[in-house]
């Protein structure tokens, strides 16, 4: 039951993009086509889950016992950067088809604040390892959901006649705002 609540909360109530403001750059940047959006979303789910679990272990076994908690930021970002490199190499060598579809998104992920953000949230909420895994996968899925929905909306908007100054990023942001408003309704559900 608790895990179920955790998943629902991470996907809908506290959606990582629409309620927690994380990962907005790729959210606006890669939401022009739904194909791209799905690829980016999958890459985030995958990397965020791995990063959250590994950084959890780093914090638990390396930083906390040595009273190095203040180095959290630097340790986490280095772990994530190295992890992304490793995943890229691994996919390239071992699963070329997957690399073909996800590979181009991997470099973008190091600077995706959703990944680092999820890892830090797990620490601040003092999650256990299992909760960390569930939370990070669910948050990644929440990111993917928001991204794919926005991409489908924007694909249709391309065909609409809008003032030229509104085209592109401004309209994308306003659409994101309306989606965020819709997701805001889930807040009432939580209590």
């Amino acid at each position, binding site marked *: 039951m608790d895990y179920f609540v955790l998943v629902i909360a991470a996907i809908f109530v506290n959606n990582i993009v629409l309620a927690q403001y994380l990962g907005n750059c790729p959210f606006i940047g890669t939401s022009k086509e739904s194909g791209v959006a799905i690829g980016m979303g999958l890459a985030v789910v995958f990397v965020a889950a791995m990063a959250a679990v590994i950084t959890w272990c780093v914090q638990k076994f390396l930083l906390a016992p040595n009273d190095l908690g203040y180095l959290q930021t630097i340790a986490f970002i280095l772990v994530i950067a190295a992890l992304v490199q490793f995943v890229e190499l691994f996919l390239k060598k071992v699963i070329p088809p997957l690399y073909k579809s996800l590979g181009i998104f991997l470099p973008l992920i190091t600077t995706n604040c959703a990944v680092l953000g999820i890892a830090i949230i797990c620490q601040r*909420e003092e999650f256990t390892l299992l909760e960390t895994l569930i939370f990070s996968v669910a948050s990644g899925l929440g990111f993917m959901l928001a991204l794919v929905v926005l991409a489908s909306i924007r694909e249709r908007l391309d065909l609409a006649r809008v003032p030229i100054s509104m085209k592109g990023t401004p309209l994308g942001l306003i659409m994101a705002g309306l989606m965020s408003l819709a997701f805001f309704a889930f807040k009432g559900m*939580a*209590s």
Partner: protein
Amino acid sequence: MKEMIKMVVVLSLICGLSGLTLATVRQATSARIEEQVLTYVQGPALEQIFTGYDNNPVKDRKAFDTPGGPVTIFPVMKAGKLTGVAFETFGKGYGGDIGVMVGFTTDGDKLQGIGITTLKETPGLGARVVEPDFRNQFRRHSTETIALSKSGGDIQAISGATISSTGTVAAVNEAVKIFNTIKDKLPDAWGS
């Protein structure tokens, strides 16, 4: 090969320098950070519990040895005379530990009141232990038999947030136990 060595050397040098700088900054700021955390996390709870004191409880804090480990005690004084003490204990909540600051008066075995310091609960439900209606039940409460009404006490649990209410009561009882072991040492510690 030469390039490889250069890469490793440069990277390790940069990392080493950054580690050194950070350790220095950390050393220089750690005392102030501790003070700030106490002022802004524990401080507000102290203000909820006590009124009319003229010292700075965070500045005057002292650590005491108790059977369960060291506890930081915040003294509350008026005109140089110790009128009460408070310290933090933890109880199990729904989503993690609840930190409860428990205040005692020195002029008799009574609770002065409680304040919530840390809380991770379902927003809207458990968060109500923070609200005055629940907290005020502990104001001037005797230190004997603090329990929820369903266990025969007189504290009304928050409907729908039994776990948080139970956790808070457990934390308060824990504090009472600690208070009883140290209360004789208190007047000497702050010289009144």
